[in-house]
């Protein structure tokens, strides 16, 4: 049975959703529309003149092999960030859920890193892994490993992935922990009586029951990896070495704010918007079907 409230007339419901509509309009539809409009032009930085180029900006971007390569970089980066931030979070949440004593302290400590801004997290990791002053780099040197993320593309990618995922583990932990508390004890006890061991219970009962949370976190983390990791990349690698860590959103920044190429930057925002929209639709269409609510 669904519960629905029905209104008589249009005025009240409109009034009630108006704040949300206004917010969406001002902060999403207006700027997004502006970006679409700007992507059709090559303006000069000062806004003194504009050249209409139609889809020229898109053509220019999509014919550039380096831009196309940054799609792959973004895919690799966001997949890794999502995995690295979700799997340990789930693992830690499962462990925390089994704690009897000290669960509060453990939980608090795990949530802390979430309070650290991405750019600051970037600097923290940079200090640890810096080739000159980094303590981890120094220890690696003692072990005979020549750590050099300034030139080694895989190391650079690894570093930005870890730095971006670190704070997110806390966020994901929080959701998993809450979801675990909601798993009915009776089901688990019944399975235990039937002789199912912990990991078997986990994979056949707990994990499926967590699937709505996992699905939600998947969407949120991919969006995070796409848009909010910019600060980490900016502070650690600036997109290098070569183009190893130039993800799409970093290129939007570099071309728009550093390069003053607003037409290309706007076109890239539009492409990014489409990509994320498409990803979200795909997720809802295909993955959600397998989610047990």
């Amino acid at each position, binding site marked *: 049975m669904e519960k629905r409230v029905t209104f008589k007339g249009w005025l009240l419901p409109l009034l009630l959703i108006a704040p949300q509509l206004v917010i969406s309009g001002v902060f999403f539809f207006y700027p997004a529309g502006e970006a679409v409009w700007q992507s059709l032009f*090559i*303006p*000069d*930085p*000062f*806004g*003194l*003149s504009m*050249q209409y*180029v139609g889809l020229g900006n898109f053509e*220019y971007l999509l014919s*550039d092999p*380096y831009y196309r390569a940054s799609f792959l970089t973004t895919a690799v980066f966001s997949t890794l960030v999502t995995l690295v931030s979700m799997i340990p979070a789930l693992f830690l949440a499962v462990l925390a859920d089994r704690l009897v004593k000290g669960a509060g302290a453990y939980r608090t400590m795990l949530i802390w890193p979430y309070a650290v801004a991405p750019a600051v997290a970037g600097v923290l990791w940079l200090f640890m892994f810096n*080739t*000159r*002053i980094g303590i981890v780099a120094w220890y690696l040197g003692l072990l005979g490993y020549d750590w050099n993320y*300034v*030139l*080694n*593309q895989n190391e650079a990618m690894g570093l930005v992935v870890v730095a971006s995922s670190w704070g997110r583990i806390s966020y994901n932990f929080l959701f998993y922990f809450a979801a675990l508390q909601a798993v009915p004890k009776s089901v688990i006890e019944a399975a235990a009586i039937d002789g199912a061991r912990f990991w078997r219970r986990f994979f056949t009962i707990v994990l499926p029951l967590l699937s709505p949370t996992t699905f939600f976190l998947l969407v949120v983390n991919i969006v995070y990896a796409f848009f909010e990791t910019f600060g980490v990349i900016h502070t650690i690698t*600036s*997109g*290098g*070495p*070569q*183009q190893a860590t130039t993800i799409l959103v970093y290129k939007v920044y*570099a*071309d728009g*704010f*550093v*390069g*003053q*190429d607003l*037409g*290309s930057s706007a076109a890239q925002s539009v492409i990014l918007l489409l990509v994320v929209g498409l990803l979200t639709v795909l997720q809802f269409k295909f993955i959600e079907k397998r989610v047990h609510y």
Partner: protein
Amino acid sequence: MKNFALGALVASSALLSPFAAFAQTDIQFWHAFTGRLGELVDAQVAQFNASQSDYKVVANYKGNYSETLNAGIAAFRAGEQPDILMVFEVGTATMMAAKGAIKPVYQVMADAGVPFNADDYIGAVKGYYTDTDGKMLSLPFNSSTPVLWVNRDLLDKAGVAKDADLSTWESIGPVLDKLKAAGVDCPMTTAWQSWIQLENLSAYHNVPFASKENGFGGLDTELEFNGPVQVKHIQTLGDWAKKGEFIYKGRRNEGGADFRAGSCALFTESSAGYAGIKAEAKFNFEVHPLPYWSDVAGAPQNTIIGGASLWVMAGKPAEDYKGVAEFLSFLSSPEVQAKWHQDTGYLPITKAAADLTREQGFYKANPGTDVAVIQMTTKEPTGNSKGIRLGNFDQIRSIIDEELEAVWSGDKTAQDALDTAVTRGNQLLRRFEQANR
């Protein structure tokens, strides 16, 4: 509490109002200097403000060079631009193309009736910021040029003779071998690889970096830094990188910290690195001219500058421009310039400031500080060594950074990397041409 704050506000504004009524004109000046350099700029401004009562220059730090340029552009779009905006040399073409957004310095000076002669400036400094008719569009502020910094203690340790030749790249090779053999981790590193190892390399050997006099002759310029001289140089550095003799530290001046800490023996970096190295280095250091390839005819020519200049923004009241002219004239006076040069290691941008510094005995007391000046001024600049004026230059430099990294890591040959950089860079030049048609 609220009332108290309100009261304080009223009281303070009452105190301030008599001064405001004095009709002093505020001149907004946005710059990109923080730390020690920021203090020195503030001191210059304070000195100017104290020297007269008609104008008050208000200096504001707006972030690094890119951020300051962005702040200026955003402010212009909103109609709230400052009177004076500091723009780094890479942004020169952007500012120059924005005809309606700037007021050329020569015009500001002429309108205000303040005497101004572009020929007072050192040729290579002047050339960077003048139009094709030799008229100065922005006022050079801080200019530096790359030199070779040497850690003498490490060279001694490696058994390199005190008088060993460090003037050519041919002679640097054996020195690096010795340093490596002696167990020096970082025989050589560089800051600002595009600026030093390509832009300055080209000028120093009198070969073009881009066509049309490096872009001075028009927006339809094309990159040409994949010539034999540049390829040979980059390939040599790449070979040294493979041998562990040239150590890449990053795109900006990350290597500076390594040099100052005493772990790198040779370091190509701006002459403006002087203040930091002098303050921090706990070893004997020397300044040498940038090395050159002796088999290239005409080398060494002259090196080019990096740094920033001051642009006057359009659309301000006439009264402001008079103050701006006074302030710019104050900044370029020999005394102010000589002090700036001696405090920072930036070049003295006028001949008078260089002469004054020499008379004051600064070069004698601080050997090596005149290396950059000599390197810039012994020869008259040519079309290849006047400077570089390219649109989207910041992004072109990023492309060069990316491609050079491929050489240092051994993924590409120098020829391959430079060819690719030229092709990719040319696309950006075409876009800039289109945007400013």
